[in-house]
């Protein structure tokens, strides 16, 4: 067993404490009786009850999930071809433009993305009459746009690792490029597609700024509702909501980790069997 280097090991421990302590505090105070968030007055689960009676929050959760589900789906449909073009097609006209448009949304400040998309939707409505109302569809378009950049990066990373001789073998045996992609490449990169979809899903669920710009009355996502409540001050109901989000993400991560480990074990067992 290798010992961790002392200074950087300490920094790592400190960094992890820094990352997890605030969330632990949130979870602890979500069970506080008092509505004053900083004073501990005893154990209670009443804030969870209040959370589940809050119609506005429940409606926003439903809106957020719907938008995130469809935005992640569309982002995979756009990000995968972009990744394919960047890693497999060599040089072509428009490559630089595609590359800049794929990488820029990764770091573009959200206020700029949000403002520019809203101005686009307003202009489109003035010229074509669509979108007459901003809401779920405009949020979906906005989220798809920045999420597809993340999907493209995740999928491109996987595509670069794929052994190209398998694809070339299929092509040599007479498989047309499209068929090669769907029967050979796609199954190999499917874990990256799932990872990209999940990343896009969480990014869409999490977005406040872009959604605030491009949504109209009547379409509130969860971050928008949380933000308007949080900016008035600290509220124990939000602590309960935070605890549930942390619980859901931890559980999803554990399941994903378990499935990955099981897949790895199966693969290794398969290798051993064929080796016999």
């Amino acid at each position, binding site marked *: 067993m290798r010992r961790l280097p002392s200074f950087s090991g300490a920094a790592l421990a400190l*960094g992890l404490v820094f990352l997890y302590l605030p*969330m632990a505090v949130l979870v602890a105070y979500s069970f506080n009786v008092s509505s004053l968030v900083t004073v501990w007055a005893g154990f209670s689960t009443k804030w969870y009850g209040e959370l589940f009676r809050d119609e506005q929050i429940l409606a926003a959760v439903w809106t957020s999930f719907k938008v995130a589900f469809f935005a992640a789906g569309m982002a995979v449909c*756009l990000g995968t071809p972009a990744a394919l*073009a960047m890693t497999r097609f060599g040089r072509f006209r428009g490559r630089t433009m595609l*590359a800049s448009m794929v990488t820029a*949304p990764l770091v573009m400040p959200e206020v700029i993305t949000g403002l520019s998309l809203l101005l686009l939707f307003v202009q489109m409505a003035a010229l074509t009459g669509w979108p007459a109302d901003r809401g779920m569809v405009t949020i979906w378009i906005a989220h798809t746009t920045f999420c*597809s950049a993340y999907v493209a990066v995740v999928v491109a990373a996987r595509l670069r690792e794929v052994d190209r001789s398998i694809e070339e073998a299929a092509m040599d045996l007479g498989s047309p490029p499209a068929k090669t992609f769907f029967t050979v490449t796609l199954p190999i990169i499917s874990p990256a597609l799932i990872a990209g979809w999940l990343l896009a899903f969480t990014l869409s669920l999490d977005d*406040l700024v872009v959604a605030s710009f491009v949504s109209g009355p009547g379409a509130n996502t969860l971050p928008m509702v*949380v933000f308007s409540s949080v900016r008035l001050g600290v509220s124990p109901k939000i602590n309960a909501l935070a605890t549930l*989000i942390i619980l859901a993400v931890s559980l999803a991560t554990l399941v994903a980790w378990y499935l990955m480990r099981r897949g790895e074990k199966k693969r290794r067992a398969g290798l051993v069997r064929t080796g016999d």
Partner: protein
Amino acid sequence: MSLRARLAFLSAARPGRLSLGRRAVIALPLVWLALFFLLPFALVLKISLSEAAISVPPYAPLAEYVDGTLQVFLDLGNYLFVLGDSLYAAAYWGSVKTAFLATLACLLLGYPMAWAMARARPRAQLVLLLLVMLPSWTSFLIRIYAWMGILSNSGLANQLLLGLGLIDAPLRLLNTRFAVIVGIVYAYLPFMVLPLYAHLNRLDMTLWEAASDLGSRRFNTFMTVTLPLSAGGIVAGCLLVFIPAVGEFVIPELLGGPDTLMIGKVLWDEFFLNRDWPVAAALATIMLGLLVIPLMLFHRHQSRELAS
């Protein structure tokens, strides 16, 4: 090789000519991004040059037919207004300063973390990676909100300092630049650690051993071997933190105060509170101008990564 495959192969191999299928694969993301990412910036530029008006949408048209002739109104007034007002200059400067300090803090904390992760046993590396990434999958807003409770006057940080006898009266921590920087470091630390880890992990450890065998001292090895080899990770990490931090809205809104003006928040207020769309568009255009060099650096770095 079948005839069809041979044809496809030939047309793909010829430079500059792409098969119909390939063109469709490129066109799908290209058209979407051109329409919903590139075109909007042109509109921001256009609206930043028009005058505010009491209408729907709240700005005057750039071009109009008057008596049969086309008249174009380009109004630089929004830019003159933004550049002439010291409030906006202070907000731009505040954003750059805050983002710079936060990026530096992220690097100083993140580098040793990434180094320790890259040196850990392979199985431990996976767990550590997961532990660093997990917080960024939970809600950004809620993680910033957590610090509101910790940094408030009666919050955990002050209670701890009072309990230890380090201070006599609660410090004002919330609504300061310090709080904004803590928030940015907290929210963006994983974006610094991940690219650093990816670079340090690929680093050939025998180089390090060779340096120490040849009598190089640890600090010297770090400065002459490790640091230059991980420069790509440092650039990527710093840009991933710095660029979005300049335009940050949520963190200064929740953790900052009146003296920690940042341009993202000013733009938001100009748009949603003052409803002055042309000035908001001018603010965004100048912000983009400010970020052009770091954005280009990031693009160059990223396309090199994509190509390699």
